[in-house]
């Protein structure tokens, strides 16, 4: 007795091959989700007690990052400004703005403003700002166009593959140290060369390679070894 129709042969073969694709698709979907903003929160703006605008203060007023993030060059932690730093100006400017009420309230009561973290590495990963700044990695290489962010969001996934992508080839990203805080820095090109120590560079790779030597970077093996970031 023929239970199955002949066509089921083809069908079963198709399902076997199909299964491979289904499994592959599953892996692909999992990988895609793992990298998506659903997991990494890249590009997600967080609610803040005061809608502080980097666009306004950095691009509009020309205030340097270090005016507020005072410890970024010397410690692992960039530093979040205390209320006093805002009050340097806002004790006198926009003193009636409702937006700034939490700042004034905090200044009066001495209670800290509670900002919501945007960039958050897991606790098992070690990160240090000072070394990156001192070896010529610009803020916007990692944080994106901060001077165009009315509200802060994180640009990068901050996942391990993202860190490693640079640690494997730092020369692709380095810039002269004095340009680290320049949010509008452009990589050298033949129309816009970058000058370091009297030498003009017209492409990133030759600039980067020389900076690797100048700033005495360790070897790639060194900075990609697990214990650099997991210690």
């Amino acid at each position: 007795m023929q239970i199955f129709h002949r066509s089921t042969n083809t069908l079963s073969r198709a399902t076997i091959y199909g299964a491979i694709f289904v499994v592959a698709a599953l892996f692909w979907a999992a990988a895609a989700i793992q990298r998506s903003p659903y997991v990494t929160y890249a590009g997600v703006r967080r609610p803040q007690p005061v809608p502080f605008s980097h666009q306004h203060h950095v691009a509009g007023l020309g205030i340097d990052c270090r005016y507020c993030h005072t410890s970024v060059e010397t410690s692992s932690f960039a530093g979040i400004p205390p209320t006093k730093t805002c009050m340097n100006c806002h004790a006198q400017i926009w003193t009636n703005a409702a937006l700034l009420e939490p700042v004034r309230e905090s200044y009066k009561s001495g209670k800290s403003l509670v900002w919501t973290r945007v960039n958050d590495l897991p606790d098992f990963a070690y990160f240090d700002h000072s070394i990156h700044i001192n070896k010529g990695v610009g803020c916007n290489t990692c944080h994106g166009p901060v001077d165009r962010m009315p509200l802060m969001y994180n640009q990068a996934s901050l996942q391990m593959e993202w860190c490693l992508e640079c640690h494997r080839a730092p020369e692709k990203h380095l810039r002269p140290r004095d340009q680290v805080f320049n949010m509008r820095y452009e990589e050298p090109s033949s129309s816009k060369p970058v000058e370091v120590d009297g030498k003009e560079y017209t492409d990133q790779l030759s600039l980067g390679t020389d900076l690797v030597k100048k700033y005495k970077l360790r070897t790639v093996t060194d900075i990609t070894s697990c214990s650099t970031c997991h210690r």
Partner: protein
Amino acid sequence: MSPTFSADRFSAIFRKSESSRARLEPRWRGESKPKDPYPTTDSSAHRGKGLCGLKACSTLAWFTILLALAGCRQDMHDQPRFKPLAESDFYSDLRSARPPVEGTVARGQLREDSYLYTGKMGNNPGDYMPFPVTTEVLARGQQRYDIYCAPCHSRVGDGNGVIPSRGFPRKPPSYHIERLRKAPLGYFFDVITNGFGSMPDYSSQIEPRDRWAIVAYVRALQLSQDATAADVPAGQKVPSEPPRFEELGSGATLPVVENKPAHEEPK
């Protein structure tokens, strides 16, 4: 005396975002794992009709479970340790870090040399630098000045910075007025440390050595507005090689600099 960089009473708190905290919960724990991945395939194959339906069902279930797993992040992401400024619900001020006990002296902050920290000799501002001024010190001073002072005083020190133009009620005076040109170095140090009138103090943002570097640079600015490089006798306390500006705040004319120090940053 309080240490230079203390966790002052206004320091911010830096909280983990609520949404990420929720997501960091290990969701997979409660879910029961299916025992056999393909228990339905065999039987359904012999039942004929339901073949595709059931298979699709199980695939779908797997798909969902995998997706859910992919979205999971585990315990190790949040460990019982605090990053700087992290929030803690243990203390009533919500800070995880405790302010130092009054009178604590942090490493490297023992104020042995009181002139370095006050700029005063007795009650009067002194007129000398506590350490020799080199080109490095001046370059550092320029950099720090541009960060912390230029928003209000402008890069050339004439008081026409951006902030006064946006409604800061009092315009800072130009550094190039007679009174300030004659002011002793220690006076500037004192203004940075304690503020002056409607100008806030910068003691928590700038450490003492950098304040002195700024002072040296301000003096250099004043000299540069007042003289040419050739006027400066060799061996003067504050070498007054005038800094080069590419962005003149306000039509102030500067003497032309012939040999610019090699490491001075182009701005």
